[in-house]
């Protein structure tokens, strides 16, 4: 048997795209497999305000297909529900070249140095699986820098006083303010909080051969009209393809990781998925396999690939694959102002503080707080109205008329305390369109996560009031499973095979040539949007792999 490729990478998202580029540019032959298809603003930029990655009322705009790809969601009362990709409890990620990076808002945070050592700093709360990362901020810093420069981040280096040391400034200046920014800055100053413009993977000026952001009013959840939003689909994946050594195979699902008679990984079994195509199955051989399918599908794939040697799934000898599923709970405070604070100038995130990420008395961790993306009118209706406002009559219509421009919001991603019972398993009964058991998602966030959430909610309200809001409202979601687009943690890396799924470079314990490369590796998920960390980790781990191959 001859391997057709040095590496097969499963999933062309934030991590898979970076890994393909690093490995192809290092001279390796790469096959990058994506279940979705390549998309552009022209063919997928339609603004359906009811079917997108911010509001999935009746569908989604960048896959996966809503038929044939169910999951089973177990609610907090223990009831199982079969759910489609746009329905509650599915925890969907975009299925397209670039995955979430094609439609994200692009917040580009480096984690705080103490985000990598949560167990050491706070101790391990009862019932949680809180752990340190096997790498430190200092290990990550050069790779963060590569991600900032090579994917393209706008921001001001040194503006975040709580950030770890950085060697270089961002390649682009920050995006400009909007109407709320000044008031929120004054309010923060009155509370003694430091604020700055959050870094974004969005062109504030022409960059990388593509134009600047045009500040449209529907950024997050949609493809970018100017192509000034930097994802892997318009940066590192084209670079990988330009080497001539990387092949991109779209509308193709990896059914399982293929192993030989002694359980060694030899490639993958694929099935083509195009709507008009009769599914065709075949095996592709490679010297190594990298799983970058996201925390839910990467774990599912390991579980689906059981062999005689590993009957419970690859890398799952200790029943760890799929556990510690986490994301970010977001407490949100809304504030009504006398003045107009919303001018629909996108992206909309203009001011943040990281003063509450650590050092909160009696609280484990914390969160970054920031204003948010411009809300679509129907999202404003569904999420931003005060509880006591009637949803009918002129009162409702006039609140929309007078309130849309006068409401600001502050929210933040709480650093979750992982729980081993939040998990991905294979469902016993439900199958996808190819006959494979689907992901079964269960558990609720740890009680400490909710405690931090309530603490951060109060801080968000304080900031809003200090900024001059005449009324504030808004709360926390109920205690439930957290994953979503920030899904992480299901194949945690570590230094001990008994308590982790991979080594500190993502190599699955017990295998020489099987790697995980996505947020599945994160022992904890930071008090920040995780995508820059996912990209930085992919630069680091793919470089390491290129040296081994």
């Amino acid at each position: 048997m001859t391997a057709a490729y040095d590496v097969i990478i499963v999933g062309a998202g934030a991590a898979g795209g970076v890994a393909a580029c690093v490995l192809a540019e290092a001279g390796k032959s790469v096959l990058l497999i994506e279940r979705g298809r390549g998309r552009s603003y022209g063919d997928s930029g339609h603004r359906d305000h009811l079917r997108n990655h911010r509001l999935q009322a009746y569908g989604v705009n960048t896959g996966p297909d809503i038929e044939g790809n169910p999951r089973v969601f177990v609610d907090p009362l223990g009831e199982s529900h079969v759910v489609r990709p746009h329905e509650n409890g599915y925890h969907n990620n975009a299925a397209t070249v670039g995955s979430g990076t094609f439609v994200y808002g692009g917040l580009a945070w480096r984690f705080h140095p103490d985000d990598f050592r949560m167990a050491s700093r706070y101790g391990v709360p009862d019932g949680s699986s809180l752990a340190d990362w096997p790498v430190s901020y200092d290990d990550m810093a050069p790779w963060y820098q590569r991600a900032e420069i090579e994917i393209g981040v706008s921001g001001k280096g040194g503006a975040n006083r709580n950030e770890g040391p950085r060697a270089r400034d961002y390649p682009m200046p920050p995006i400009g303010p909007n109407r709320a920014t000044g008031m929120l800055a004054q309010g923060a100053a009155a509370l003694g909080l430091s604020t700055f413009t959050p870094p974004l993977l969005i062109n504030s000026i022409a960059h990388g051969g593509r134009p600047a952001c045009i500040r449209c009013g529907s950024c997050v959840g949609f493809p970018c009209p100017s192509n000034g939003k930097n994802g892997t689909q318009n940066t590192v994946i084209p670079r990988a393809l330009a080497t001539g050594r990387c092949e991109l195979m779209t509308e193709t699902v990896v059914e399982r990781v293929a192993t030989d008679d002694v359980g060694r990984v030899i490639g993958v079994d694929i099935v083509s998925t195009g709507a008009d195509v009769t599914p065709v199955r075949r095996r592709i051989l490679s010297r190594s396999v990298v799983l970058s399918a996201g925390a839910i599908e990467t774990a599912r794939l390991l579980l689906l690939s059981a062999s005689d040697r590993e009957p419970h799934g690859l890398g799952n000898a200790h029943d760890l694959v799929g556990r510690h599923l986490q994301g970010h709970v977001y407490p949100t405070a809304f504030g009504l102002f006398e003045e107009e604070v919303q001018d629909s100038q996108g992206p909309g995130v203009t001011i943040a503080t990281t003063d509450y990420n650590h050092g909160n008395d009696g609280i484990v961790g914390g969160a970054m707080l920031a204003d948010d993306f411009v809300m679509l009118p129907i999202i404003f209706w569904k999420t931003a109205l005060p509880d006591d406002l009637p949803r009918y009559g002129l009162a409702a219509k006039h609140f929309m008329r007078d309130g849309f421009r006068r409401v600001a919001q502050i929210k933040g991603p709480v650093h979750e305390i992982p729980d081993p019972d939040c998990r991905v398993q294979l469902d016993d009964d439900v199958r996808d369109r190819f006959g494979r058991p689907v992901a079964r998602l269960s558990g609720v966030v740890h009680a400490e996560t909710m405690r931090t959430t309530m603490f951060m909610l109060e801080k968000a309200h304080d900031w809003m009031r200090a900024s001059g809001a005449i009324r504030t409202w808004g709360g926390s979601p109920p205690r439930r499973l957290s994953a979503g687009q920030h899904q992480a943690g299901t194949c945690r890396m570590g230094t001990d095979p008994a308590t982790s799924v991979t080594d500190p470079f993502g190599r699955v314990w017990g295998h020489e040539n099987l790697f995980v490369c996505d947020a599945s590796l994160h022992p904890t998920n930071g008090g920040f949007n995780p995508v820059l960390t996912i990209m930085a980790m992919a630069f680091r781990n793919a470089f390491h792999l290129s040296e081994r191959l």
Partner: protein
Amino acid sequence: MSATSKSWVADFQAVLDRIIPKDDYPSASEAGVDRFILDLWHCGSEPSEALVRGGLMGIAGFAQLPVGEQDLKLSTQADCPWFRQLCELAAEGFYADPANGANPDAISWVMIGYRSGLPDGPSGPPSDPRDAVQGRLRA
């Protein structure tokens, strides 16, 4: 259409026009919200038709009442699941992009001051037929 279903639709439209009444800006039915909801039900995207029709049956003849009595009647329904669901669907039609069938010329966005800022107009580029599954339920 039978006489019964005609009167059902008349009550449906009348309730919608008290959920989103006319002022300087259109009412729900003037903005096409009634058709938007009927289309959602027709293509199987949204399952509340029986619930809402059951609720409307309880206030049959609503369309013939004077406006003041209509509002009194609705205040007794405010917490009923059928009415809350209908309010939500009405808002979806009224405030979503015009390509969803209601909100012509994005008139509600003018009302609230939302600016799409897109080069192609409020709904952006046309949708891709490859993404349509089951009518308008998209991939």
